[in-house]
């Protein structure tokens, strides 16, 4: 390529990206705000008031959150892979979304889960525990006498999604008043959704399974449980987490 052509390419790149460069001030303002640079409080995250009553428990779920779940499908879960993940994803970030017309911000933290998972989680609201190869994300504040709220993530390496879906449906039948295979969905994650509930009362249990192809002949099973009243709260929030669900393969 001759110098004239090089020059044209460079100029084309410059001219066509001016509109992004014009956002420089806006981005700086966001950074200043995020890092509290004007307050001299450079690395302290804002503390969030924790509410303990049941309604805040329900409402917590309506605050926007995002969890990027990174799943390493490689059987050798080495430090190198983890390091690559850490390079790829921010250790902390602020997630902003409008829920019920109100913009909210949450800080989420990259965490290393057990058994080949790395996730972003809002540790002010949720905790993640691992047991028997499953990761369970549940609210820190649990209300007594209300159905449990949680999301479980599990990888079944040797079962295709069709097989997993059949097993889940069979398992749910008889246990729940309503069991529906809602077919393939794209939102919050490309998957097959199986929905079940015990009824229509406020405290009836809702179960949602998202069965995701792991792209290697296996499946991820993501199970959500909450109660009807919390559909717009934790239910929405758990779905928001899945908006950034990622499978990382080496």
């Amino acid at each position, binding site marked *: 390529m001759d110098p004239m052509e090089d020059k*044209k390419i460079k100029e084309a790149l410059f001219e066509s990206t001016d509109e992004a460069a014009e956002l420089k001030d806006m981005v700086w303002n966001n950074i200043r705000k995020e890092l509290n640079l004007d307050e001299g409080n450079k690395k302290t995250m804002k503390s969030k008031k924790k509410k303990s009553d049941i309604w805040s428990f329900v409402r917590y779920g309506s605050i926007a959150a995002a969890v990027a779940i990174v799943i390493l499908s490689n059987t050798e879960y080495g430090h190198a892979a983890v390091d690559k993940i850490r390079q790829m994803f921010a250790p902390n970030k602020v997630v902003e979304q409008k829920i019920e017309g109100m913009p909210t911000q949450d800080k989420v933290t990259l965490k290393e889960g057990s058994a080949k998972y790395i996730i972003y989680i809002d540790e002010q609201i949720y905790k993640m525990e691992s047991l028997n190869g499953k990761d369970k994300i549940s609210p820190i504040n649990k209300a007594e006498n209300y159905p449990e709220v949680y999301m479980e993530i599990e990888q079944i390496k040797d079962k295709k999604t069709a097989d997993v879906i059949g097993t889940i449906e069979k398992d749910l039948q008889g246990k729940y008043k309503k069991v529906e295979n809602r077919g393939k969905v794209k939102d919050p994650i490309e998957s097959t959704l199986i929905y079940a509930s015990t009824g229509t009362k406020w405290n009836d249990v809702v179960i949602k399974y998202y069965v995701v192809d792991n792209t290697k002949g296996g499946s991820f099973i993501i199970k959500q449980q909450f109660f009807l009243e919390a559909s717009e709260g934790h239910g929405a929030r758990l779905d928001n987490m899945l908006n950034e669900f990622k499978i990382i393969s080496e």
Partner: protein
Amino acid sequence: LDRRLLEKIREGDNEAFAVLYNNYADYALRVAMTVTRNKMSAADAVQETFIRVYRNINSFDLEKTFEPWFYKILINECNRILGKDTKTIAIDDFIENSSDHSKEDDYKFEEYETLYKAIDSLEDMSRIPIVLSYLKGFKDSEIAEILGLNINTIKSRLFKGRQKLKRIIERLEETNKGDGSYGR
């Protein structure tokens, strides 16, 4: 200059951080836009990149050159944003692939901006090295460091990308021969 700035930032000098931003933001936004193809995504990527730089500045080895480290974070942030709508991201997203899936555009090249569209039409594996090379002027070795790839891989991708652009430019010039519209 960078080293002195970075030392000050480590000491908590926010003005130094502002200077660093001022020095790097313009190009970072341009590169991010070409990678994400969206100015708001570019803004998001640059914002997260600077926040990461600020929070992780102590982990940066001052003996090394700052810019490749910075752009490595930026490209990763761009990939993170691009990956939002996909469920799978390969850690090494740039596996060498000799097959050429991209098609050269059949745009009717009428204006200068169509060259950008031609660049935009390149596959990521060629486009990102091209952008880093032309827009930011990185050396092949620096691009290899940023993308975590072998330098020969980068050379190969740059070569293929340039060849493709060269053909497109030639077509542009043929199309616009005589009317003077190209290159204004």
